[in-house]
């Protein structure tokens, strides 16, 4: 049959460029098929070979990441990663970005980001039990920031709350480098039986391919291509490429899919996310070494007169593609109709390794499936490392104000202030298993009636990554590892969401390459493999890229949630122990930025041996029930960590002066040296802990006692805990309530 170029436009150089295909990529396509493509084919190829779907700039470097461990069931390459958490149970999780759409339309962009990641998790047969997110916005005084933040938070809440999964944690920060490209990274975590995991790989020739879920409309066409290009001033003009979410439909899809999976009818399943029907069908076929033939006349459509091109590129939400056992078809159909969802057989698997699309009796596309899918182009893009930044000594940072004032100002700064205004818009109590709510180092969710639980966190420090991508990459992993240890969890695996600028710019590409090296090194050293992830490049507007932001989502296991720790001071008269070495590192610290107005210097180095040693020590102390509170030290250093513990527990503390061998007091209190924790314990227990630390060569110092209603830092007037709290709590609500923006 001749290929039909019906009503289709001639394929011109401009049209190819509009589809984001580079001239050499178009030549590659011509060589592959030996003729000019139809418009539908051009659309399909552009959807599969864009950065978002093909990972063509990052794939070479992603291959270097450690992805294996005895407890890893499924690493990167599937809808989500899967790890074994014992007792026949598996944890399924992934993080994914929806940056570009959220900037264009914050509510729907963020909502469909949550919807997409939830689908990735339940596609694998897991019931979602928690969501987290990592958000970055432009400078607070940028005219769009308030509007974008309000819309994104409402969108995340709107989708997750309605779907019925608790949003238990996250990270929120601001920087002018995100003015034109915000980051919305959503993470979902689910539970499945280890012997009931479902994969995208199609099996068997002649099996029915079934379309499930909502109908296909004209929304989100070319969303993935939009997300694979930098913005210019006309970002708002791309609004039609943003999808519209329906969490109610997603909830129905979840229940119907899990019921269908339990019936034994499902051979393969893939959600329709980026690049919709195209991507899901091609991935199923390519992974299973099978061809796919689709008949678009059978696709349930929301509107009439949709062309093959539109159907193949629509990113309408809440849709799934499955390969079913033929004999179970009727049973499957009954389940879907019970939930009021569409069910249509729209194609079959074939032995041809071709991706064939028919519409109204004509063939609209006939392409080789492997080259579209897992053999898409890969680039080794040129990259270069930025200059090494100088080390800044504490002596070179004269304190402009006293430490007490600095502490209050830091607590009220946009990056360190309480994020209550945000997380109170997320349902974090649903399912009744939230042991630790947002606001701690890591969230804890119990598994069913316990005693087992999962600790979850999202982390990255973009200013460190900008200053030294390699150390920054290491730090992001180490910070996640620390946050999990600080609640008493054994870190098991991570998911990453690599947000970077334009990979065609060697400097931005260098940040990606070096961050990945750092992530790989830390993950290897800490036995903390990467099991899933997502890459978001082209986060650039008018030539200005974002801070390099490799978000890390960490998952750890707690054997008994009754033996976990939180950061709040629990009682008076407890000894406060500082664990880890303090050298007063002020380079790239928030003190330097917020108090001195300088974004300078090399970031704190990450000593992975110390991380492992100190982290394991803390975890042991918590599991043995010897400490009453634990907190990792990060942004803002020791003083901020102490204040957070005091605020959370509504108990003050008296902190002694650093010893003469310690750094100057402002560096001691605000330095951001890594691998450090604070714990509290009864005095006698604290002495035993100190002896044990000495035996193991772990730096430890008793720095004060809990009690009273004030936090007293050596040499300064006491500050009421209530004063700390109002500084910490008031900035964000006041900012959001202010007019303008």
């Amino acid at each position, binding site marked *: 049959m001749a290929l039909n170029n019906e009503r289709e436009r001639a394929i011109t150089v401009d049209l190819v460029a509009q589809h984001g295909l580079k001239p050499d990529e178009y030549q590659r396509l011509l060589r592959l098929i030996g003729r000019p493509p139809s418009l539908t084919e051009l659309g399909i190829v552009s959807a599969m070979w864009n950065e978002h779907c093909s990972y063509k700039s990052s794939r070479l470097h992603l291959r270097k990441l450690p992805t294996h461990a005895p407890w890893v069931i499924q690493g990167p390459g599937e809808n989500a990663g899967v790890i074994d958490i014992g007792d026949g149970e598996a944890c399924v999780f992934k993080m994914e970005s929806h940056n570009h759409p959220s900037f264009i339309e914050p509510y729907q962009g963020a909502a469909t980001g949550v919807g997409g990641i939830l689908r990735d998790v339940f596609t694998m047969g897991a019931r979602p039990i928690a969501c987290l997110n990592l958000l970055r916005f432009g400078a607070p005084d940028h005219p769009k920031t308030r509007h974008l933040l309000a819309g994104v938070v*409402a969108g995340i*809440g*709107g989708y997750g*709350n*309605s*779907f*019925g999964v608790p949003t238990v944690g996250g990270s929120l920060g601001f920087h002018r480098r995100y003015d034109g490209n915000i980051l919305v990274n959503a993470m979902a975590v689910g539970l499945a039986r280890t012997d009931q995991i479902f994969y995208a790989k199609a099996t068997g020739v002649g099996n029915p391919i079934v379309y499930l879920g909502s109908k296909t409309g004209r929304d989100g066409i070319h969303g993935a291509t939009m997300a694979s290009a930098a913005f210019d001033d006309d970002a708002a003009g791309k609004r039609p490429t943003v999808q519209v979410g*329906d*969490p*109610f*439909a997603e*909830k*129905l899809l979840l229940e119907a899919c899990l019921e269908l999976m339990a019936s034994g009818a499902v051979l393969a399943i893939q959600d329709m996310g980026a690049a919709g029907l195209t991507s899901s069908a091609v991935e199923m076929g390519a992974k299973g070494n099978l061809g796919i033939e689709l008949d678009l006349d059978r696709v349930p459509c929301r509107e009439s007169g949709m062309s093959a091109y539109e159907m193949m590129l629509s990113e309408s939400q809440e849709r799934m593609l499955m390969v079913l056992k033929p004999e179970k078809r009727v049973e499957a159909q009954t389940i879907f109709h019970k*939930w*009021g969802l569409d069910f249509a057989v729209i194609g079959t698997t074939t032995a041809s390794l071709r991706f064939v699309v028919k519409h109204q009796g004509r063939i609209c596309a006939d392409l080789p499936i492997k080259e579209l899918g897992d053999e898409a182009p890969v680039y080794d893009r040129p990259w270069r490392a930025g200059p090494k930044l100088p080390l800044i000594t504490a002596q070179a940072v004269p304190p402009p104000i006293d430490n007490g004032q600095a502490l209050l100002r830091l607590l009220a700064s946009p990056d360190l202030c309480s994020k209550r205004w945000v*997380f*109170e*818009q*997320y*349902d*974090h*109590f*649903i*399912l*009744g*298993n*939230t*042991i630790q*709510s947002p606001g701690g180092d890591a969230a804890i969710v*119990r598994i069913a009636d*316990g005693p087992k639980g999962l600790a979850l966190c999202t982390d990255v420090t973009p200013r460190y990554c900008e200053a030294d991508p390699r150390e920054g990459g290491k730090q992001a992993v180490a910070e996640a590892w620390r946050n999990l240890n600080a609640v008493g969890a054994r870190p098991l695996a991570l998911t990453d969401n690599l947000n970077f600028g334009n990979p065609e710019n060697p400097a931005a590409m260098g940040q990606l390459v070096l961050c990945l090296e750092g992530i790989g090194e830390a993950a290897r050293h800490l036995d903390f493999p990467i099991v899933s992830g997502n890459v978001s490049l082209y986060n650039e507007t008018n030539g200005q890229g974002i801070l390099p932001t490799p978000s890390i989502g960490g998952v750890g296991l707690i054997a008994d*949630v*009754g033996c976990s720790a939180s950061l709040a001071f629990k009682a008076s008269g407890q000894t406060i122990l500082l664990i880890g070495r303090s050298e007063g590192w002020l380079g790239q610290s928030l003190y330097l930025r917020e108090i001195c107005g300088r974004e300078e210097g090399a970031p704190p180095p990450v000593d992975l041996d110390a991380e492992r040693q100190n982290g394991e020590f803390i975890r042991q102390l918590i599991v043995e029930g010897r400490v009453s509170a634990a907190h990792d030290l990060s942004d803002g250093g020791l003083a901020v960590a102490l204040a957070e513990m005091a605020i959370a527990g509504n108990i003050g503390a008296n902190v002694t002066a650093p010893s003469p061998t310690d750094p100057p007091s402002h560096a001691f209190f605000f330095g951001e040296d890594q691998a450090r924790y604070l714990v509290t314990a009864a005095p006698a227990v604290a002495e035993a802990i100190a002896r044990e630390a000495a035996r193991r060569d772990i730096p430890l110092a008793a720095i004060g006692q809990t009690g009273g209603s004030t936090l007293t830092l050596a040499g300064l007037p006491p500050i009421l805990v209530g004063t700390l709290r109002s500084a910490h709590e008031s900035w964000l609500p006041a900012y959001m309530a202010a007019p303008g923006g």
Partner: protein
Amino acid sequence: MQAAVITFPGSNRDGDVARALHRASGQKPHVVWHADQALPTNTDLVVLPGGFSYGDYLRCGAIAGHANIMTAVREHARRGGLVLGICNGFQILVEAGLLPGVLMRNAGLTFVCRRQCLRVERNDTVFTRHYRPGQVIDVCIAHGEGNFAADAATLERLEGEGRVAFRYCDATGQIAAHANPNGSAHAIAGIYSERLNVLGLMPHPENFIDALAGGSDGLALFESLAAFRSGRGG
């Protein structure tokens, strides 16, 4: 005490409330699909759980109020059977005409999820007998539309007849604007029907049944219900 939890397509705290009932009574509730016509014959208590019944894009609970099963629920209530509606369930009870008033968008215009203190206004009903009178309990709220409103006459009647079940308060039991999370009239968090057999409330006692997971102040509501003995000896 035999309970039946009604499941709408968008219910999402049906499992949570079933768990609380099971923990308090040792007995699993029936699960009844919204499209069904009848309740199981031995049902003492019908529970309408939290969620977004039909997506609630129109008005919360508006469509669910007309679901098939609601005819049976109305009849059950008319006979004096117990009905508990939590959050979306409260909204459905109001839409179905089983309780007065309306639940408007929160005064702050955003969804609010937080721990919340409630004052138990009376402990002589089948729902609250395991609480002390005036007890302050710590549970949670999670809703976008929980701002209870009614005309002056209805509010006066609710107050006069002792039909306010719970009020939002601070940790000391004081009613104050800062302790009212959604702008509800008279700080009303939950109300009874005339015969005290139907209770609707916005907060989620079913998520606070365990000291490890938030707290256990919600459990006494389910224990009160578990102690109920129907006239049929069931």
